[in-house]
């Protein structure tokens, strides 16, 4: 996608998940980060994974309520370049009308709503890893989801 329609939008997340971003995102610790324990490179990757889990599990989206915070700026969604397309397609599918492509704010609301309902599922997987690493435990769970 030549342009990122989400560039002016915010990735908004419930404040309840703020600490989890610190736990599972590498970028915060730079070179000291351990991918096996922090499987996501950036905040938007963690957020996008939550959307994917929610979509895969067929959960009805619901926008964040209560206190929220800006976990990332929409410009961060510009890479990888297929990601704005994926989010746009999600909005089209959800809305049933392709004209939504002209309303980035609404598309972003849909994405944030999916992420909001996806986080509890994603975190349930991550927080039940026991002695396993976050990377292995989540990968196995995803593998199970995809082969279901």
């Amino acid at each position: 996608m030549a342009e990122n329609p989400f560039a002016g939008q915010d990735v908004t997340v419930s404040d309840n998940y703020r600490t989890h971003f610190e736990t599972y995102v590498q970028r915060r610790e730079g070179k000291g980060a351990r991918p096996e324990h922090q499987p996501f490179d950036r905040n938007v990757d963690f957020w996008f994974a939550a959307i994917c889990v929610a979509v895969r599990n067929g959960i009805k989206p619901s926008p964040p309520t209560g206190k929220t915070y800006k976990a990332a700026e929409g410009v961060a969604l510009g890479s990888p370049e297929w990601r704005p397309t994926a989010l746009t397609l999600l909005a089209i599918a959800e809305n049933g009308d392709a004209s939504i492509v002209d309303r980035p704010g609404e598309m972003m609301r849909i994405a944030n709503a999916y992420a909001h309902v996806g986080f509890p599922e994603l975190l349930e997987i991550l927080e039940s890893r026991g002695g396993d690493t976050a990377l292995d435990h989540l990968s196995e769970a995803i593998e199970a989801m995809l082969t279901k």
Partner: protein
Amino acid sequence: MRLIKARFDGFRLLDGAEFNFSVDKKKNVTVIRAANESGKTTLLSALQWALFGDEALPSTYTTISMDIPEGMVGTTTAEVTYEVETPKGTRRYRLVRSLSDRAGSSSRPKSSVALEEIKPTGNDSVPNVESYLGQHMPADLREVFFTDGDRALSFIEGRRGDQQKRVRRAIEQLMGLPLLEAALEHVKKAERDIRAKADNVSGSQQLSDVRAQLEALDLAIPDNEAKLAATTEEIANLSDLYSRADRTLQDALKKGNREEIAGDLQRIEKQRAASEARKRTADLDQSRLLSGIDFAKGMMGEKLKAAGKVLDQLRKKGQIPNSTIPVLEERLTHADCICGESLDPNDRDGARRRAHILHLIEDSRATDVLKSRISTIYYESRELTNGKMAWHDQYVKAYSARTREQETYEELGRQAAELEARLSKIKDNDVQSAREMRDTYLQQLTSKREQATRLDVTVRNLRQQRGERAKEMETLLARETKGRKFAAELSAAGDLRKIVEQTLVTMKTREVDAVSRHMNELFLQMIGADPDRAMIRRAAITTDFNIIVYGRNERLLDPSQDLNGASRRALTIAFILALTQVSGVEAPNVIDTPLGMMTGFVKREVVKVAASSSSQLILLLTPDEINGCEDILDQVAGEVVTMTNPAHYPVMLKHDPGTSDARVLICKCDHVSSCEICERNTPSTPKQVGEAA
């Protein structure tokens, strides 16, 4: 000599302590049962003091009881009854030795001693007691006949030279070799005297010169022989030190060179760091799959398809692709329109048409933005909606790579840990210092061997010169009338000297060989060595008085290192018993705690062999040593008593002995029974006693 009974008063823990020793030839063993700290070693010392005098105890040894207050005087008395076999039959003696000492005094006073022969007609006092005692039981034999399990080990432990010296001394003393050596010196002196007389009588200068040369040679030969013996002893010690240093070096080399191991460790650590980096990359590769396009395709597949359908419908309606503007813009690049009319900007109609197309483009632009975006999405969505979903394959590949790298990392970690462990065991410069030490000993050994060779050559030359001078002297004497008598005397003295010298050599070799063979028999019997299967095949005493042991394939073993504790003790006891048997000296073997570190078969066999190899055996045993040998002691013990230290109540003794004096109590309990005095708590009882208290 056979001990009959002994009584000690005021000798440390022994006060009013009476012991009867078995003189029954079939049951020749006396067992003194006593736990640790109950007077066994005191009794061994007391017997030696009584029989051998003050020299038998260290000068700082105090005999009086610990209960005597500082500054007060205490008296120690020992009374021993014994018998000796003489050509005229058995004679019985009573020995009394005593001293009075002040508690806290720095030196022990000399003892006084009295000896009397016990006769049916009354006792006869014996004058010159020490001389008599020396005849009945020579002081030189004390350390062979009176010993303990630990001290006996000195025959095979410690410096090699010292071991040899102790073994040689024990053999020489017991075989009466010092007497022969004294006889030899005597004959040599007689030779010198005869030569001096002959020299005086003849007045010949030539004879006088030869005599002077012989005198000088007679001084030089023993001097060089002594130097050679000392050098040989040093060589033995250095050989021992060299062997140990070499073994240390071999051990150090087995552990490895510190620098080499440190280098290996550094290399492994580098590989490990590289492996860790690769593993991190592999982790990263797998983590990226959780943000990748195939992950999105797999997870959002349904929604992506749904969106695709919406876009497909638009395409079918012709709204996608949105190509109006691009077609018009594209046409402006041409000279004519698709209808065939000119679009040449230089032509008036052409310019007009171009302006019209530009106007159409501007009008379409605003309304086509939406369609344009949808068109873009339509084309871009193909990447997400078409094609095979490859997440699983990528996951398997990434996971395998990670696992492989993890295994490599862990293997390198194990190697590093092993190297670190080896490194921690090696002291700095371990190999280097061990090699330096070994080389130093080798250098000293080489130097000493060269010295020994020189001395050996010197001694041979001196002996040859002596023979030539002696012959020359005989010839010179034979020429003179007055000298013939001296020549005959000298010849006789020379013959006598040769006989004594040859006897000494024979005794030293033949008797040592006899002790060696007998020791081997007793030792193998004690340890139950099977000649075909055993790890230890035989023991021997070398001509230079080393006690050695051979393993399988005639492999030489170092008794102090290659034998276990029980076998070491068995070997030394076998040596002592063999020595006393071969010597023919009849005297009691008194051994304190001989069975320490022994269990089972070896312990039982040592008791059996010792009982059958000794004329009278007095064993000072702990209850633990007796344990397992009760049935053997039933058969061989003619006398058994128990010594008990009352200070052991209530922790170790079961009953209150009714006294807190520092003296042992003696009861008639044998090796299996106990009474109110000697009954001891079982290991669990002290707690109960404490609870009751």
